[in-house]
């Protein structure tokens, strides 16, 4: 045991205190940094021992590790709940946009224009030859048309924004993937496979990136135990592996919708969480509920009015006129070499369903697109097969394979093509007979009565009932989405609080530590001074 040992002990104490002060300073500095994990210096007794006449004396203090306060389980939960939050956030945002388009609470929907249109028919019924009433009817019809088209435009705009949101998210996901891969590389370099060395700040950075990525998309991640790098997969395809990444790409599919391709595979259907999952769900809801519902409502309205109107007679004696533009069939040809034509033969038989035609073993099969029910089937004749179904006639010719499909819909253009078709108000068919012109109002009465008539294409409900159901369905979905958002936000906040409780910096704690470590430093300095004084005493002997 020599005096130098004393100086050495003092030096280790001084070093340790200095490091502690440095870590404390870093904690204070990063108190506001998102994702930062509080660090703490863990001390141990220095292993080197000196001998003092056969008695072992401690050789000072050394740093065992700088501990990062981190709970891996909690971090995993946070990642998951961030995905749920991301989904419910974008779903709720989009659905409340859809809801706003049908906002009956603020009289923005169709209820008012619809009843006014049918009330105008009652006014025509009161004065069938009155030009004022007829003009008013046309005006109300135009208002109804533009109200319906405004909603469809709103919905298409919303759907466009969803596609844009998806494209933006894809860019962000790729950028985050690149950053994670880069940080992976740095961590691998710093830690060098060591189990004790931990690149704390880089891991904090990577966790923050992962959290951001989780908000966007549902992912699975696991750490490579060998080198500390993090692998990330989306939809069972690898996004980040070590320092390499696969690029997520957005491609337009047949329906004109964005699908997501990763590592050569379409993973769209596998994504249900994160903002991307929310956008995909919102896209489906908007298409299947709101847009289809609106089109079916419009199709049923215009077809029912047309069928009844064509039976009446105008002031000019004309009959068979359509009040609104006739419904049109739209075809989606997904075949290699076959052709198809489709026309409406009897409007009154239309069920306003959408159909899919498939082929197999020399036969054709027509399915209801919405529920998959087989409607009709028969032998396919490549020279020309005529199918008569529910007021339509389809003719398909050419060679077909089992991969070929046709889709037929009377609804696709139901709203965009919706508009009044009469050339003049004279043609408004209020009269039930030619002889009854001009005072007969029987057809006008029947038309006015359509509003409370059960319509077969609307599952035998009335126009207003169907519309009410539609509004309720949209409202309920939006309500459910915003409730889920509230729940997942609370859950996420709760988890964040728990994470902060473990990993967060407490300034009071750090202030106390600051004094503690300062005092320890002063004590160590005092020790060195004592040793120095002892040296001096020795020298001056």
């Amino acid at each position: 045991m020599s005096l130098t040992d004393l100086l050495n002990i003092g030096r280790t104490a001084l070093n340790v205190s200095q490091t502690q002060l440095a870590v404390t300073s870093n904690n204070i500095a990063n108190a506001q940094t998102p994702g930062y994990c509080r660090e703490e210096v863990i001390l141990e007794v220095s292993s080197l021992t000196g001998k003092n006449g056969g008695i072992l004396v401690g050789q000072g203090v050394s740093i065992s590790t700088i501990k990062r306060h981190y709970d891996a389980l909690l971090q995993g939960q946070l990642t998951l709940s961030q995905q749920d939050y991301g989904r419910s956030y974008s779903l709720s945002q989009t659905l409340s946009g859809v809801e706003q388009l049908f906002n009956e609470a603020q009289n923005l929907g169709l209820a008012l224009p619809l009843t006014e249109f049918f009330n105008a028919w009652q006014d025509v019924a009161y004065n069938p030859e009155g030009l004022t009433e007829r003009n008013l009817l046309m005006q109300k019809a135009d208002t109804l048309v533009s109200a319906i088209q405004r909603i469809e435009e709103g919905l298409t705009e919303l759907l466009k924004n969803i596609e844009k949101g998806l494209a933006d998210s894809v860019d962000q996901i790729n950028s985050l993937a690149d950053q994670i891969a880069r940080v992976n590389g740095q961590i691998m370099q710093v830690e060098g496979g060591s189990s004790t060395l931990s690149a704390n700040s880089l891991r904090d950075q990577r966790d923050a990136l992962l959290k951001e990525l989780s908000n966007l998309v549902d992912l699975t991640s696991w750490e490579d135990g060998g080198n500390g790098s993090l692998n990330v997969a989306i939809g069972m395809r690898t996004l980040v592996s070590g320092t390499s990444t696969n690029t997520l790409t957005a491609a337009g599919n047949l329906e004109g919708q964005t699908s997501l391709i990763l590592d050569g595979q379409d993973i769209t259907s596998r994504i249900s969480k994160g903002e991307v999952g929310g956008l995909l769900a919102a896209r489906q809801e908007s298409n299947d509920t709101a847009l289809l519902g609106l089109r079916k409502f419009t199709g049923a309205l215009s077809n029912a009015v047309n069928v009844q109107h064509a039976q009446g007679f105008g002031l000019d004696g004309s009959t068979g006129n359509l009040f609104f533009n006739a419904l049109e069939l739209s075809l989606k040809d997904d075949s290699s070499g076959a052709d198809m034509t489709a026309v409406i033969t009897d409007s009154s038989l239309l069920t306003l369903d959408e159909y899919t035609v498939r082929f197999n073993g020399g036969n054709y099969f027509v399915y209801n697109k919405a529920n998959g029910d087989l409607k009709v089937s028969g032998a396919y004749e490549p020279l020309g097969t005529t199918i008569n179904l529910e007021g339509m006639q389809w003719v398909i010719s050419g060679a077909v394979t089992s991969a070929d499909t046709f889709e037929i819909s009377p609804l696709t253009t139901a709203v965009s093509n919706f508009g009044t078709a009469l050339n003049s108000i004279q043609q408004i068919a209020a009269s039930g007979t030619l002889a009854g012109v001009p005072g007969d109002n029987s057809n006008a009465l029947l038309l006015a009565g359509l509003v409370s008539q059960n319509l077969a294409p609307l599952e035998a409900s009335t126009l207003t009932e169907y519309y009410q159901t539609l509004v309720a369905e949209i409202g309920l979905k939006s309500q459910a989405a915003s409730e889920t958002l509230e729940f997942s936000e609370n859950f996420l906040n709760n988890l964040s609080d728990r994470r902060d409780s473990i990993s967060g910096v407490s300034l009071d704690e750090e202030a106390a530590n600051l004094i503690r470590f300062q005092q320890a430093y002063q004590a160590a300095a005092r020790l060195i001074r004592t040793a120095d004084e002892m040296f001096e005493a020795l020298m001056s002997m």
Partner: protein
Amino acid sequence: MRVTSFLPYNQLARGLKDQLAELTILSNQMATGKKISKTSDDVSGTVDALGYRLSLSGNEQYERNITRASTVLDFTETTLEQVASVLDSLREIVLDGSDSSLSEADRTYYAEKAALIRDHLLELGNTTFEDRYIFSGFQTDQPAYVYDAVNHRYSYQGDSGQLQLAVDRGLTQTINFAGSSADPSISTAFSYTLNTPQTVTLADGSTVTYTPLPDPGSGVTFIEVDITHPDHPGDPEYEDHFHFSNFMEMTDLLSQAWQYQDLDGTALSSSESLRRISAMAVPLEKSEDQVTLVRAELAARHLQLENQEEGLQANSETLKNALSEMEDADMAETIIALQQVAVTLEALRMSSSRILSQSLFDFLS
């Protein structure tokens, strides 16, 4: 639990966010007076309210229809009242004028009076309401009756059209009366309905048979009148045939008979003419009954409309109350809630400003 610096800040931020959101909702309720600002606030409430509004709007239309129907029926009633009084005065002169001892001056007087009544009836038959001929059935742009100078007839230009208005869901009310019709089931205002032939004996022993002859071609029912005398069968002097289809033709027949001539101006003997006049007493009575009947039907329709309107108004009142219950914010409640939120917000701000401003660093020197 270890409290870190972030925690109270985050909690404060969340608390402020929640309270401000609540404040926005409440002040929006104050501003609009409505509880519901979007469907998802209360889905069943919105849908119910939507249903109420649709029913209300329907009711308003029905009430408007009822008002119009009542106005048209009122107007028709006024016209028919005049028809009744005109027919009454006609019956009086027929009673007075079927006397064989009439002087030529008397006859001319009666003939002229009948002609005046005839023209008055024609005027009443061609009454318009809002530029529409109300007794023309569906042919509302045509006068109901015009004089056909060639055939000496008052021909009906209308049809049997029954103009109906919806007065409730699935319930309609007819608002017009056709002047004439070939269909005996339709109440006509200017011709009477005879379902089976009718025979009467006049004072001089002549037998008069009235036979209804519906003529779908012209859309009217003629009453064929045959006068014979059982003591003089086959004697042209005692036989007479003529027909009429509406009040104007009846009056015209009378007017001509007082001038001892037929409709086309051919001369009739005085006895023939007087028999004609006497034979018209029965149709006249029938006509008056017919008008009374139509007026009774009109009154019944009126009553029905009034009941319907009362029902609709009561229904609308209930709907309005339900709608208000569903949609309208309770102002007192909203204001109290608003104050509570304001107090909470204030407390949150004050307490947090005191707690968060302090840290151990403040006490180190």
